């Protein structure tokens, strides 16, 4: 095949240009540390990289959500811990006040402290997160949720719980609505409550009030009245459902409930047994303070107060368990969030390493390639200089 002189020059130049293009490419790859400069270099890898970037972005969002949830759940857990401490302290004070050695004035001091605990509980229920959003207000968290009207709490928040997404199809509640936490505690033993009639004249007081067969209790109101050493249990229709001789400390059983009393009744003394109702925690503390503050000059006043304190202690136990269940639930969620954070971190590292495999340049390989390209270009240049110097005309 003939070779024309012009082609000889042109093809050498073309080849050097294409070598310089490869050189430019390696140089840019090394400068950017990226394998590909645009999607055209490897459309499939590029699209896969974009997919992983999106995954990474989503993981970062979940991580940020998890951090927010951790913060809010920790606030809730701490607040509920304080609430439980308040209830424990109230319990100690109630037992202390129930002791026969207390005078009216010392009980007044205890009642004062109980009122302080009541206010502390209200303040805790109205606590904000430091940014003006109230922890126990549900999603209507722009205003303090609870107001105290002197007898009970009224709730201005809502029952919605804000959820934060911390995984695909995995959300976690970042708090609990205050109405559920503080208002839904049933008084008495949870099934029924017992109160001494204000007109009692004997020293009789309630000792225990339990349920021996929940299926028999029909939710009716019963009256237990004493007369002549005997007792009678009547339902709301005044029908006698049980009666017998009263013995101090012996169980009176009827319709699934079981009551024991201390001390002796006077004739006509009575107790009323009603189904439990929802009572808020602050109202419980207020009620306790009022009982403690009440005068106990006579045996009957003492009996009424002791009955009240017996019920209040049961209710304190139940309230403590109630708050504890929310604290535990917050703690469990916190644990879940922490587990999820670990999973998210691992997923994020996986995604980053995949992304790096897809996109990052193998420096050693690129450096070797740079060396090869340089060598090839130098060889082509030196070959061109030698070849173009050859001409028959030099010898004419």
């Amino acid at each position: 095949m003939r070779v024309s002189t012009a082609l000889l020059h042109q093809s050498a130049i073309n080849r050097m240009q294409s070598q310089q293009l490869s050189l430019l490419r390696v140089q840019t790859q090394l400068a950017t540390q990226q394998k590909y400069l645009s999607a055209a270099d490897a459309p499939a890898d590029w699209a896969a990289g974009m997919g992983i970037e999106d995954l990474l972005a989503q993981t970062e969002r979940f991580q940020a959500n998890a951090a927010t949830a951790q913060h809010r759940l920790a606030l809730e857990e701490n607040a509920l811990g304080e609430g439980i401490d308040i209830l424990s302290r109230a319990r100690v004070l109630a037992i202390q006040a129930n002791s026969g050695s207390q005078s009216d004035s010392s009980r007044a001091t205890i009642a004062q402290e109980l009122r302080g605990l009541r206010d502390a509980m209200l303040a805790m229920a109205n606590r904000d997160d430091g940014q003006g959003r109230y922890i126990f207000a549900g999603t209507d968290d722009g205003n303090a949720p609870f107001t105290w009207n002197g007898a009970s709490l009224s709730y201005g928040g809502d029952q919605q719980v804000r959820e934060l997404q911390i995984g695909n199809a995995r959300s976690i509640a970042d708090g609990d609505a205050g109405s559920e936490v503080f208002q839904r505690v049933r008084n008495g033993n949870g099934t029924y409550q017992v109160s001494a009639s204000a007109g009692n004249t004997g020293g009789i007081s309630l000792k225990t009030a339990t349920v021996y067969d929940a299926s028999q209790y029909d939710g009716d109101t019963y009256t237990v009245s004493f007369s002549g050493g005997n007792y009678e249990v009547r339902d709301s229709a005044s029908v006698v459902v049980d009666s017998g001789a009263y013995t101090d400390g012996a169980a009176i059983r009827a319709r699934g409930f079981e009551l024991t009393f201390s001390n002796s009744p006077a004739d006509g003394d009575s107790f009323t047994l009603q189904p439990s109702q929802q009572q808020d925690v602050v109202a419980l503390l207020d009620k306790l303070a009022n009982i403690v503050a009440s005068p106990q000059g006579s045996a009957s006043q003492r009996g009424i107060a002791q009955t009240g304190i017996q019920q209040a202690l049961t209710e304190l136990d139940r309230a403590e368990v109630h708050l504890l269940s929310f604290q535990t639930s917050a703690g469990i969620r916190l644990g879940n969030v922490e587990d999820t954070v670990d999973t998210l971190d691992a997923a994020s590292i996986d995604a980053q390493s995949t992304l790096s495999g897809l996109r990052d340049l193998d420096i050693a390989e690129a450096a070797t390639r740079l060396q090869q390209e340089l060598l090839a270009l130098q060889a082509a240049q030196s070959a061109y200089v030698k070849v173009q110097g050859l001409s028959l005309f030099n010898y004419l």
Partner: protein
Amino acid sequence: MADLLSIGVSGLLAYRRALDTTSNNIANANTPGYTRQRAELVSTPGIGAGFGFIGTGVEVATIRRLTDGIVNTRLQSDASSYSRLEVFSGFASRVDSLLSDPAAGLSQPLKGLYDAANTVAQNPTSLAARQAFIGTSETLATRMRETQSQLDQMDGEVDTRLRMTVEEINNLTQSIADLNGEIAFNYGQFSGQPPNDLLDRRDQLLQELSSRVGVFTVAQEDGSINVFTGSGQSLVIGQQSTDLGVAPDAYNSGRLDIVYGTSSAPITAQLSGGALGGLIDVRREVIDPARAELGRLAVGIAESFNAQHAEGMDLYGDLGGDFFVPPQGVALAATANGGSASVSVGYGDFSQLGDGDYELRYDGASWSLRDLRTGSAVALTGTGAPGDPLVGDGLELTISGSASAGDRFLVRPTALAAGDIQVSISDPSRVAAASPLRAAANVANSGSATASTPTIDDAANVDLLDAVDITFTGPNTYQINGSGSFTFTPGTPISVNGWSLNLTGTPAAGDSFTVSAAGANNGDNTNAQALAGLSSQSIFGGGRGSALQAHAGLVASAGLRAQQAGMRLDAQAAISAQTIAERESQSGVNLDEEAADLIRLQQAYQAAARVVQVADTIFQTLIRAAGG
């Protein structure tokens, strides 16, 4: 004697011509398109005598171009393919860089949008988070508009280059026609001897023409060449050339069509190859799909955000309004339309939206829609009247005015949509992050049932925000607002007024639940979460998935086009290089070869001169003998 002299002289003359030819070759060694020439020597016919024929010398039969017509035709078709791919690959790479650039592309703004929505979900009432959400949405909208405007500019550039290329083609065909005339004249005048340099010049022009548009040629008896486009329109017939022209297209869409001669009928679709073919392909295969996919992404994001935003409640306690200004498609009436009808293009079920353009046609009685990409008809329902639009392929077409039979419209659902995308709200309090409804269980409830946030089934229900009281009259029956008796099935939501409420746990008789409007300044994040969740939600049909996946698809398909165009260009470059090497092997000048020829011919010339000298010596000898 005389013979010896004339033979010597014929040698001198012939070699002189051959030396001239060689030096012409040397002089033109680097002239583009030059074909090396050779003086073809033939011996002149001998003179018969009794002892046989005696030779009478040498003469130049012709100066021959060493060329191969087939290689030349291949060079032309290579030039056509190469220019087409060069133009195509250039535009494809520009679109690719535009879309994949980490700084100029849409990846970061898209990620930012969902990140910001998520931050609002974390802090639903934070005005800073809401402001950032609006800000990032604006960044995305701006970036989309910029991307669209870059693509529009490229489209405009295609038009400019189309116009320029058509002018170049006209100049070239004019020059070829002129050359045809000269060549035919020269052939005639010099009894069929080829005017080599004119032929070279014409081959060169033909190659330049081929690089602008695909042509084929037919050689004529008189040496002229007729040139036709690939689909048969004649550009040059003998000494006559016909000009191409440009004219606005049938819909006056801003694009140019190519017309032939004085006719106004467009032949754009029939042209292929060369830079012109490349430009036409760029429109159809690079710019149109990129704009349509970008537009579809813009429409998808805007429509899905608006739909979700409408299901939320803002800080003023109002239902969410449009987050983005609702995008609209474009319908262009053909300039030839007789009727006054105009068409507005809305989106119905945008998940069905394709990414092509459509032609809407009225036959006097009914409307028909045709997908211009596939050519297939699209089934339409509805009449087109306001309130009952023509519905097909995710489009809702409303006709106003009256149409005449034969009227046509170019419907471009998404091609320009990304250029109009705008964020509709500027007040951060207007971001509807909260659920518009809240459910509450009465505190006095004795059952264990709790209510979760109601889900919105129909945000447009006029009674959506009305307060509803659900009271259980038994564990499995309930009343709504104190009336009726409905059966409650655990696990099945209670649906009223366009919302659904899920109760978990067991309700007791007497328990009541209320659902009411969430009100102003609500810290709920349900809707913000749903907005952030749109990142992974599949909003497009046909397996095109979420907005992020559609964006990855847009970038990858642009990248794939650029990659394929680049590979085909490289392949064509190699093929062209091969053809050029073949042509050079045949027609190129090798200076060493010419130098050797120079020596050879010079020696022959010297030898011929020597013959003349010998003739002279013989003549002198004869004179001396005669005179002596």
